């Protein structure tokens, strides 16, 4: 069997907030296989955001190791981390985080821009990704001319455009109504079926239950909730 795409060993992170030391992560270990659809669930203040920043290579752990697609992340410098983010991770955020002054197409192009891809090729790939999320006809709209669901789909297209091995979605349905939430989750499921590894961070069990595997984070520690189980869990 191939090596897991993400291998986190004994990761810790502490920071001080208003003079108080917060142990956001206390020795977290996690392995994610290629092609998995993982949901990380936890209430606010559980260290969920910190963990996402770690997986997303936005931050470095205090100790422990993180191997992503064969690369040791914990020793990397800022610029190397930027390259990793660009090539290995596609972000989908709760508030979409699209650039308001750029059209949908240009927003989708951005990761390729920073990768140095030529204009023509960039446009072609960006169009393909918009087509995947069903927004080809909205390519030249500005984000504020799109509905929330459409904006999130643009964000998903932007995450896909660099064909990264991992799609990291942070509360992707948090700002959407239940109907559009279902659509977004559906798109994620399809993408997973097409072979994308998806990590979903949420506090919503209903959303989490769509994933193949659920881990729960609480007080900076990680618990395996379910491997391949279909059913409803409540927060104890």
């Amino acid at each position: 069997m191939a090596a897991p795409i993400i291998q986190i060993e004994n990761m810790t992170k502490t920071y001080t907030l208003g003079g108080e030391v917060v142990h956001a992560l206390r020795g977290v270990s996690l392995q994610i296989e290629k092609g998995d659809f993982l949901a990380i669930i936890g209430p606010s203040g559980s260290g969920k955001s910190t963990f996402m920043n770690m997986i997303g290579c936005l931050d470095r752990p205090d100790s422990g190791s993180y191997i992503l697609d064969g690369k040791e992340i914990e020793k990397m410098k800022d610029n190397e981390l930027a390259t990793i983010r660009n090539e290995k991770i596609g972000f989908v955020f709760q508030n979409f985080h699209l650039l308001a002054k750029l059209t949908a197409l240009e927003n989708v192009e951005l990761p390729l821009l920073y990768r140095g891809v030529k204009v023509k090729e960039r446009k072609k790939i960006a169009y393909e990704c918009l087509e995947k999320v069903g927004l080809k006809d909205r390519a030249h709209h500005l984000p504020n001319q799109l509905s929330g669901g459409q904006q999130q789909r643009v964000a998903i297209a932007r995450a896909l455009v660099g064909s990264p091995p991992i799609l990291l979605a942070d509360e992707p349905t948090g700002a959407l109504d239940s109907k559009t939430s279902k659509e977004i989750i559906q798109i994620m499921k399809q993408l997973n079926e097409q072979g994308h590894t998806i990590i979903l961070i949420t506090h919503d069990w209903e959303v989490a239950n769509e994933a193949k595997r659920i881990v729960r984070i609480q007080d900076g520690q990680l618990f395996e909730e379910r491997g391949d189980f279909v059913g409803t869990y409540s927060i104890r």
Partner: protein
Amino acid sequence: MGLIQSVKMALRSIQGNKLRAFLTMLGIIIGVSSVIVLISIGQGSSEQVTNQINQLGTNLLTVNVMNSDSVKLTTDDVEKIRDIPGVKEIAPVVSGRVNVKNGTTSAQVSLIGTTSSYQAVRDVQANQGRFLSDIDVAYRQKIVVLGANTAQTLFGLDNPVGKYVQVEGTSFKVVGVLASKGGSLGQSGDDVIIMPLSTAQRLVKNTSIQTVYIQGKNAEQVNFVMAQVERTLARMFPNTEDSYSVFNQQDLMETMSSVTNTMTLMLGGIAGISLLVGGIGIMNIMLVSVSERTKEIGIRKAIGAKRKDILLQFLIESVVLSALGGVIGVGLGFIIGKVLATAMGLSISYSTSVSLISFLFSLFVGVVFGVFPANKAAKLDPIQALRYE
């Protein structure tokens, strides 16, 4: 990321905030255009002075009598100067301010009473009619040659030749009009009338000659002739060296150009300071822009923008702003210069190097004052920036 792409991105973000961009650029625009206008005016007048002096030839000497009580230079004395070896031609001048009238129009002009050789020595041309002749001087003819401005003031577009003007109440016949020579430093060379020396002496009731223009045979001998003239004058008027001065065109030119150069430098310096102030304006706006776009920076960093990419983005934005301001400033400077030149009769001399230097300086200002905000943007922590509302 390519440079062209960055410039395009910067242009887009400037387009998105046109009024603010314009106000930011205004500082640079004013700075660059005032540098160009002021320096072209300074250089223009310096060039004009040099030209005028050069036109007279470098072999021209001037004797000026400052104190006519102790040095009474008569026509006979002047003839002695003519006999000095190396002197080709001399033109004695009696001058004053007089009132000239044609019917009801009158004008205050400088009077030059001289001989026919003045034409050759000072290189003046009669546009209409003729210049003075020897016989006019000999017979004390009541005739005048008008300067270009004087003719226009008194006669408008009519041809004044053959008509009569009143000079201090006496009737004089106009025999010619001079070609325009332009003026410098507030002194117009065209607001004059020229009449025979003998007539002028009588008109101003003074026989002593105030100025003698001496034309040397060639430029190499000017210093030798100058020494000879000084010696002759010293023999004629002992112990009165302070009452007259002898100088050549070269000295005059050096003095004049040092004056105008200082002026140009000062004006340019003042304008340069305004460019600097414009640069501070750019820095100010860029800092505002960075904090306004913190979230954008966070997003860009999250999807893989390196520190260098963000730095370049903001730096290019400030350089594009200042370069645009510089280009507009250069254009505006040229236009203002042209308008001033036509409206106020100033002579303007554009120099490519000054335009280029002030443009490059505006670019430099953009880089210098853009680095600090750009660096601030580049150093932002992506997590903090993403969370920023």
